[in-house]
């Protein structure tokens, strides 16, 4: 996949599209960017890789004018340029595609691209002009999109194209992409990379922000590594390797593979039988889901995000009651007529690490000690009767912080001030320490640094050895493949197939995720 790098080395002779030197940015006590320098060669695809909180987002936010640097200089195409807001950035030919799309869902593609550039009083004239420009851009860069489609009817891969078109329409010659592949299937990612290559052919400079080593290796010409607010290394992509980059990101050697011996599953813990969920829109409905999960095994659910995985977790954890059908937990049936809320399910031994840790998993303004009892605040060991005892909470939290290596080990610290990895450890510590029969895990390592990923995966495997049944939902295929004993694939609210650990490879899973050519493994998936 990696493109051979034909560009000559000796970068001093090459023109620089972006030249940042000694950028500093502080937020209160946090030194988010510390003397960061970055040279991006014009017409190259340049990757910036780093863990969450390494300062990547701050750096591109400075470049795009969301923040102003405390000190340091910015040169765009060799000209020193103060960038104080995003209008400055756009005027300098910088375009940005955000991780979360900034599109009006009920507008057409054309209307979205035009937004803010209508010019004059008559919208129809502006639309005519915009259409011509866009058709030329589409042809030049191979960015095919039907300009009259409504955004919400488009798959995410195409929505992302609209974002790229938007940036190009505004005259971008430098394109910043912030974690662009998080919402894409492997095939869509491949198509995005084709577009990026076409952009490079036409002389556009691309700055790709990511935490995925594979993408850096696949598409970039140069790579810069950030750690703890500092730029720690610059490499030519063809001269480096994933293990080297991982080590640079984390600052120590990292084991990327989990030790995973074959499972020896016990009896059925979770039996899902013809589970359906109606939902007002077409998205998010579940159709006739059936599968079985046994004690001591990990089943992974793969799928592009938004294909019903979140809803499945919501139903199995008791947040949403099923519309039809239901599921058995250790023989107890839960359905529309016999519903169970999350509190009851917790009593039945169901623990849940939610996908969205900021919205559900912890309460951001709560102290760690308070967040670490979320869902268990009625438990008798946290106090007496109606009251909670701060001392007990404190002791309880300290113990878990030690067991799960949560840093800093301060129960009074506000949950929102922990790093992503440590927040996730707070959630895991809470759910694992409840000694569940069944653990539901959504996106176990989303926004979590590599060091913590290693730890979290080890914890999950250990829990499997202890006989817990574990259901893992993740959009990271690598994670699903390295953790699961069996893999089920969801598409459009249905289970479209299943593979054993040995059968699974990225290509087959990718096709099933896209709903194409799914082998008929449905018999295997059901009871």
């Amino acid at each position, binding site marked *: 996949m990696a493109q051979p790098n034909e560009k000559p080395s000796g970068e001093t002779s090459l023109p620089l599209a972006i030249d940042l030197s000694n950028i500093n940015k*502080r*937020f*209160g006590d*946090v030194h*988010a960017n510390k003397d960061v320098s970055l040279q991006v060669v014009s017409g190259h695809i340049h990757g910036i890789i780093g863990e969450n*909180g390494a300062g990547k*987002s*701050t750096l591109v936010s400075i470049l795009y004018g969301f*923040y102003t640097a405390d000190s340091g200089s910015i040169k765009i195409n060799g000209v020193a340029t103060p960038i104080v807001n995003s209008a400055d950035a756009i005027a300098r030919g910088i375009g940005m595609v955000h991780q979360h799309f900034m599109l009006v869902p009920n507008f057409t593609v054309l209307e979205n691209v035009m937004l803010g550039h209508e010019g004059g009083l008559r919208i129809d004239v502006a639309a005519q002009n915009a259409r011509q420009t866009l058709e030329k851009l589409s042809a030049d860069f191979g960015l095919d999109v039907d300009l009259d489609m409504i955004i919400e009817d488009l798959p995410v891969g195409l929505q992302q194209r609209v974002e790229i078109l938007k940036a190009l329409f505004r005259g971008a010659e430098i394109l910043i992409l912030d974690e662009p592949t998080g919402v894409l299937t492997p095939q869509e990612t491949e198509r995005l990379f084709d577009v990026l290559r076409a952009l490079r052919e036409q002389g556009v400079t691309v700055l790709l922000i990511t935490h995925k080593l594979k993408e850096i290796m696949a598409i970039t010409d140069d790579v810069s590594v950030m750690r703890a607010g500092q730029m720690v290394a610059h490499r030519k992509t063809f001269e480096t390797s994933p293990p080297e980059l991982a080590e640079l990101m984390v600052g120590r050697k990292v084991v990327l593979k989990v030790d995973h011996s074959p499972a020896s599953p016990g009896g059925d813990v979770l039996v899902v039988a013809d589970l359906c969920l109606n939902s007002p829109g077409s998205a998010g409905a579940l159709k006739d889901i059936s599968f079985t999960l046994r004690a001591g095994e990990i089943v992974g659910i793969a799928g592009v995000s938004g294909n019903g995985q979140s809803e499945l977790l919501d139903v199995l*954890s*008791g*947040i949403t009651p099923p519309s039809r059908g239901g599921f058995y937990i250790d023989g107890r049936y839960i359905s529309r007529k016999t519903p169970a*809320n*999350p*509190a*009851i*399910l*917790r009593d039945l031994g169901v623990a*849940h690490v*939610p996908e*969205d840790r900021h*919205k*559900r*998993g*912890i*309460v*951001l*303004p*709560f102290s760690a000690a*308070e967040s670490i*009892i*979320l*869902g268990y*605040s*009625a438990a008798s060991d946290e*106090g007496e009767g*109606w*009251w*909670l005892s*701060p001392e007990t909470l404190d002791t309880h939290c300290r113990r878990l912080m030690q067991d799960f290596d949560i840093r800093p080990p301060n129960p009074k610290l506000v949950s929102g*001030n922990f790093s992503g990895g440590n927040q996730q450890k707070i959630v895991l510590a809470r759910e694992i320490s409840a000694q569940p029969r069944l653990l539901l895990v959504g996106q176990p390592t989303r926004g979590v640094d590599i060091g913590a990923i290693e730890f979290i995966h080890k914890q999950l495997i250990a829990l499997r050895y202890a006989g817990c049944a574990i259901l893992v939902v993740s959009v990271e295929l690598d994670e699903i493949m390295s953790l699961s004993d069996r893999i089920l694939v969801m598409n459009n609210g249905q289970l479209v197939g299943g593979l054993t650990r040995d059968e699974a490879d990225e290509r087959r899973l990718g096709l099933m995720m896209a709903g194409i050519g799914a082998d008929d493994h449905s018999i295997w998936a059901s009871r």
Partner: protein
Amino acid sequence: MSAPHDLPRWADVGLIPLINLLAALVVSGIVVAFIGENPIEAMMVMIKGAFVYKGSLGYTLYYATNFIFTGLAVAVAFHAMLFNIGGEGQAYLGGLGAGLVCLMFDSVLPAIVLLPLAIIAAAGLGAVWGAVPGYLQAKRGSHIVITTIMFNFLGASIMVWLLAGALKAPGQMSPETRVFSDNATLPFIHEIANAIGWEVARSPLNLSFVVALLACVGVWVLIWRSRLGYAIRATGHSAKAAEYAGISVSRVLIITMAISGGLAGMMAINEILGVQHRIVLNFTSGYGFTGIAVALMGRNHPVGIILASLLFGALYQGGAELDFEFSTITREMVLLIQGLIILFSGGLAYMFNKPLARLLAMILRGKRQTEAQHG
């Protein structure tokens, strides 16, 4: 990542309200100077009128009692992210509850039984008047701001209807009930003090002030030390997290509004049992609304609410004095000053956060540099 303009807690809780207050006073001073009076002199009159003159402190604390109750009501609801605008109506209905108990039983029950019963009735009816909008919000999705405002009007209409009709004292023209007998009144503080040999000037300050302080302790325990308070705060900060935790969000919303309404209802014991000794029209006279400003300024914490209530009590009492001393400064002028304080500490509460954060960051950086030079 932390927000770019984070303030240290001491500055957020201590410094910002003071700066807001100062800004409001400066603008008020400009207005006073504009109409030709000396702002410093007016300020002195206000301070003396609120704290120094004989009996003035009692009046200040008496007003503060009302604000503590209504401020607590707003604060408790706010911890569940509910904006209870209905303190006025809940207090009004609370007065009905207390009044009805007194009217029915003041000739049969002794004070020791009657008064607690009246207090419970005040809180109870206030709670009902808060819980109904809470129910509508939780189950029907009717916005709490709209419903509580409407419930203020409903409450006011019911009270007019009752006071002009069924509850009107026989043989009387004004819309008010008969006066309760003596065992249905809360003792004045000056009476108690005088009884134990303390010389204290007459004022409407009565035992409800003590009840208000107890309510502050109660609210603190409820919010920060009870399982229910945990559920209330979890629901307020993140309804999705509460849902995930198995907390019944709708139940918490209804219970919270009942507690909030109950606290607002208890404001009536100061007015009805403490001072008026009968139910009169419009005894709430806007205290319910001022409670919103009190809670905002007190950052929804009981200690903050006591301080903010003292400030507003002083403004009410000192303002009356101002009205009395200066012919040019009328009642409306005093309202304007109160309005400015509400504007600066409520509506513009976060106006000075950014500049102050920048200033503090600059000072800190300067300190670090000098330390670096010396080290």
